[in-house]
């Protein structure tokens, strides 16, 4: 009966129809079942063991050394098997058809087509060649790099820059989005970036400090992730600190507008301060210390320079004739004058460790709070003592954990081995700067040739025509999306290499699928600063779809200009991994016994048991003549003649209080957009990494959107309830987020974590971001003429309950959809 209904099949696709059927995808095979195995690997989120069954990662367990693993490990499967993975090399359709004549305004709203790897790499090479020969090195920016996946061999920044560098010169960046202001100002003050320097060891802090001031730093949130494979040992010390707080042995004060995760963990005090007004509060504390003769004049005389040029400004004898009294500061920072005095007295009376976070310097004039923090510490006279002084990085990558003293494995080289390895030797930038401040590249695209002041020099912004991004997502980390849209319309060619369809990929012309770090063999240090060991990053599964390792991608690019042998030095992946291990083993031979590589790879990890305590600046304190700081004078510079000589109005010779372009709580712009938007590092991902992991997103998203945290008072005022969708807006843009109402937030302060993926409703300028990327509304302004760093935390917004039908979230999509022509 059924057979009769099969009549429509009779002779179907017979002799003539065979042309319509392609080759078979299956062939006879005596397949054997894949064995179940356990492998070890590492990540920004820590080390783990993975169970592989049927060629698939089915389970992850934290590596047993890690006593405080982060729940983010559970998001890793969501990265590997995300439906946002780039599966094939893709080229923007409009660009593919018209290349240089392609309408750039269609970037970000256009269709893509799949190409073969050969086609994609040919196009990449042809574009490099075209830009180098038509323009020159000034037109190519391949220097924008960021938080790559972990692994010393496959570090994608190194691979991309070495390969592109073997073809020709290009524009590079200086600084980074995390610490741009801090790392520029601090070498003038204490002689190092401080933000990336080892800090006093936790055991010494726990033993000696009586007061710890956490100034805008959230250790418990940020220590979950590390630049390399994180050990999470810092949490052991936080637990000890928690006990000491409970026992009354150490008093911890969190100076922060928000009740932080760390404050809750330690159950410590909080001192609220109005956003962006910390410098005013610090100046007033300096006023108290000086007025009440609580400052350490001997320390200032012995170890610092320029106090006498600074203190008149504090006491009202400077240019502005305003005494920076606690009463003066109270009007600005919202902290009671008596409380300011009390805090200053407390710090002078006890061994006090000041610990600053990075968010403070990610604002306009972000150099000032860091400089002023060092001056406060100098006035207290405890710099160089265990448990005293100042730190700018105890929230970062195991800083403060006693270090093993071992050498870490090196990395695949960043630059060509020899300058003559470059195909194009042209280094004529035609008057443009070859290196520009990290956050000013959008300015360069929009205003090529513009001269800006930067750290004592004049930078001439280059006329960028082509950009190459690898493992780097500026459509998350740069400020002001709509301004970026205008800039991207001026670029001729954008190449993006990544494993997921980030917004950067969607705004690119050539998109190359790299595999994730879990699909390649590699090696990493276990604990960036403590160097607790060396970990094997064993490949869990083969590269998925058509993705390739960065090493393979860039080797094949270099083959197109006959530099592949120089690029690889004739070694394959495992030979590189083994050679990095052998070099590390050789460097450590007098201190630690490390097994042969084969044994190491089988074991998966080698641990170092050394625990060396360290006191920051102790050597300088012991003998400043023999151990001078790296400042021009060798001393702590309270007044910097060098900076004063630049003549900048926004970064003078000593720290000053300056009003911001936007400031809440009665500051400029707050009458129109009253709320301060804080866009600090997220709690559930690493910047934008792992935002695409749906299993993780489900833990924090509200109605599928990034949360906006706000106070009950603001929620009430704007008629918003917990769980509502909220439109966040200002004159720069608008976004949708999901309300989380919490007592942790004071009135006038809202938070959206940075790293939320950008997903505009459509391609139009000013379009509503459907997921909640805070940089849709942030201000793209240099911190000052000194650092020209990002000012993301200088941002005011308005909010309202979202009415109507919410648009679908587009952030985690592939190429945007448009109606076919």
């Amino acid at each position, binding site marked *: 009966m059924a057979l009769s209904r099969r009549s429509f099949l009779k002779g179907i696709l017979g002799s003539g129809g065979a042309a319509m059927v392609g080759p078979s995808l299956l062939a006879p095979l005596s397949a054997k079942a894949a064995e179940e195995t356990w492998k070890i690997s590492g990540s920004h989120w820590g080390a783990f063991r993975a169970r592989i069954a049927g*060629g698939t990662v089915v389970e992850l367990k934290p590596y047993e050394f890690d006593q405080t693993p982060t729940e983010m490990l559970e998001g890793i499967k969501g990265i590997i098997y995300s439906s946002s993975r780039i599966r094939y090399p893709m080229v923007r359709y409009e660009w593919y058809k018209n290349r240089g004549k392609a309408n750039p305004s269609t970037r970000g709203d256009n269709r893509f*087509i799949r190409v073969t790897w050969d086609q994609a790499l040919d196009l990449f090479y042809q574009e490099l060649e075209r830009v180098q020969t038509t323009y020159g090195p000034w037109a190519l920016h391949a220097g924008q790099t960021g938080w790559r996946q972990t692994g010393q061999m496959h570090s994608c920044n190194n691979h991309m820059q070495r390969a592109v560098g073997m073809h020709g010169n290009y524009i590079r960046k200086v600084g980074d989005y995390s610490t741009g202001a801090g790392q520029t100002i601090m070498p003038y003050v204490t002689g190092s970036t401080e933000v990336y320097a080892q800090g006093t060891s936790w055991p010494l802090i726990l033993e000696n400090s009586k007061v710890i001031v956490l100034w805008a730093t959230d250790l418990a949130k940020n220590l979950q992730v590390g630049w390399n494979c994180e050990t999470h040992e810092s949490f052991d010390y936080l637990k000890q600190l928690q006990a000491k707080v409970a026992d009354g042995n150490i008093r911890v004060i969190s100076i922060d507008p928000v009740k932080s995760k760390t404050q809750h963990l330690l159950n410590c005090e909080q001192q609220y301060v109005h956003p962006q007004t910390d410098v005013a509060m610090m100046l007033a504390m300096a006023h108290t210390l000086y007025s009440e003769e609580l400052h350490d004049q001997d320390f200032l005389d012995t170890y610092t320079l320029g106090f006498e040029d600074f203190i008149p400004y504090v006491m009202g004898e400077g240019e502005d004739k305003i005494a920076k009294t606690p009463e003066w500061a109270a009007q600005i920072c919202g902290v009671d004058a008596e409380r300011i005095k009390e805090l200053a007295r407390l710090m002078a009376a006890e061994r006090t460790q000041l610990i600053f976070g990075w968010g403070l310097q990610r604002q306009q004039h972000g150099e000032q709070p860091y400089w002023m923090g060092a001056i406060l510490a100098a006035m207290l006279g405890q710099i160089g003592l265990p448990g005293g002084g100042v730190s700018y990085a105890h929230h970062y990558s195991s800083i403060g954990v006693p270090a093993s003293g071992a050498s870490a494995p090196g990395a695949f080289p960043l630059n060509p081995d020899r300058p003559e390895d470059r195909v194009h030797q042209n280094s004529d930038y035609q008057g443009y700067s070859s290196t520009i401040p990290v956050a000013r590249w959008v300015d360069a695209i929009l205003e090529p040739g513009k001269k800006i002041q930067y750290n004592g020099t004049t930078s001439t912004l280059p006329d960028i025509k082509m950009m190459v991004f690898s493992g780097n997502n500026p459509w998350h980390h740069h400020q002001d999306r709509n301004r970026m849209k205008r800039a991207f319309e001026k670029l001729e060619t954008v190449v993006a290499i990544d494993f997921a369809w980030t917004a950067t990929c969607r705004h690119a012309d050539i998109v190359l699928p790299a595999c994730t770090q879990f699909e390649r063999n590699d090696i990493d240090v276990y604990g960036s600063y403590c160097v607790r060991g060396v970990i094997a990053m064993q490949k869990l599964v083969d590269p998925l779809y058509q993705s390739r390792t960065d090493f393979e991608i860039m080797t094949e690019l270099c083959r197109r200009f006959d530099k592949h042998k120089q690029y690889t030095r004739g070694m394959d992946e495992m030979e590189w991994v083994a050679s990095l291990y052998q070099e590390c083993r050789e460097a450590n031979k007098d201190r630690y016994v490390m097994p042969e590589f084969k044994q190491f790879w089988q074991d998966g990890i080698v641990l170092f048991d050394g625990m060396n305590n360290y006191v920051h600046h102790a050597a300088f304190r012991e003998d400043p003549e023999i151990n001078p700081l790296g400042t021009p004078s060798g001393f702590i510079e309270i007044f910097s003649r060098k900076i004063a000589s630049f003549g900048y109005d926004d970064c003078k010779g000593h720290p000053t209080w300056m009003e911001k372009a936007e400031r809440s709580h009665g500051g400029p712009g707050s009458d129109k957009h009253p709320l301060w938007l804080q866009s600090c590092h997220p709690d559930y991902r690493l910047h934008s990494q792992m935002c695409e992991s749906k299993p993780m997103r489900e833990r924090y998203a509200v109605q599928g959107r990034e949360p906006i945290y706000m106070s009950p008072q603001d929620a009430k005022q704007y008629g918003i309830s917990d769980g509502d969708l909220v439109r966040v807006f200002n004159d720069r843009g608008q976004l949708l987020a999901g309300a989380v109402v919490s007592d942790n937030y004071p009135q006038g302060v809202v938070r959206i974590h940075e790293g939320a993926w950008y997903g505009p409703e459509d391609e139009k300028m000013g379009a509503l971001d459907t997921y909640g990327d805070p940089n849709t509304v942030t201000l793209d302004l240099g911190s000052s003429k000194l650092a020209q760093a990002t000012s993301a935390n200088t941002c005011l917004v308005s909010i309202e309950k979202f009415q109507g039908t919410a648009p679908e979230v587009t952030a985690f999509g592939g190429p945007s959809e448009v109606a*076919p022509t």
Partner: protein
Amino acid sequence: MENKLEQQAIKQAMEGRASLYWWFSSLLIRELTSEQLQALCSEQGSSLLSQLATEPTLRPACEKVSNELAKLRVMQDPQLELAADYATTLLGDHRSSAPPYASLYANDSALMYQEPHQQMLEALSQWQLGITLESNEPADHFAIVLDLMGNLAIKSLESRQALTAQVDLVNSLLLPALKPWSDACQRHTGLYAALSLLLYEFVKLDLSLLQEE
């Protein structure tokens, strides 16, 4: 004699089914070659669709496919346009397009390489078949599932087990995923959206016939 005729008819039907499954598989696995596109836009393609349209449940989808082919015929560069359509409809993320993997439609995890992938690995192993693609594709790519269905259709001429396996595969994996996938494809216009409908309708029909048989 009658029995022989029936066997001949069964053979033709199974070969026809296999050819159709392989045809759909080739349409989904990669962009069309110029030869495939030419054949599809020629008399051969029209005749294939006309023949399929004799089955009432397939007629509406066949008409949609025919309409899309008619649009292609007047395009300046139909192969390239179709390649862009292919990428837009199938190669993006499941939010903006409709990736052809059963895992994405098996539950709301939005993750690849889920249970359908494992199920396909087991099926391939059972029938001693391996994937010949250079690309490391999950085994639950619809094109691979459809290729297996074609293989099983031929095998079922000699193996009752192969017939049962087809019913199981369609029931447990293919049909539940094809419906939401085809719905997702309809967010786009173009040939692939129309083909997804035709495929869904064909598999639905095929299952009912298999169950009757």
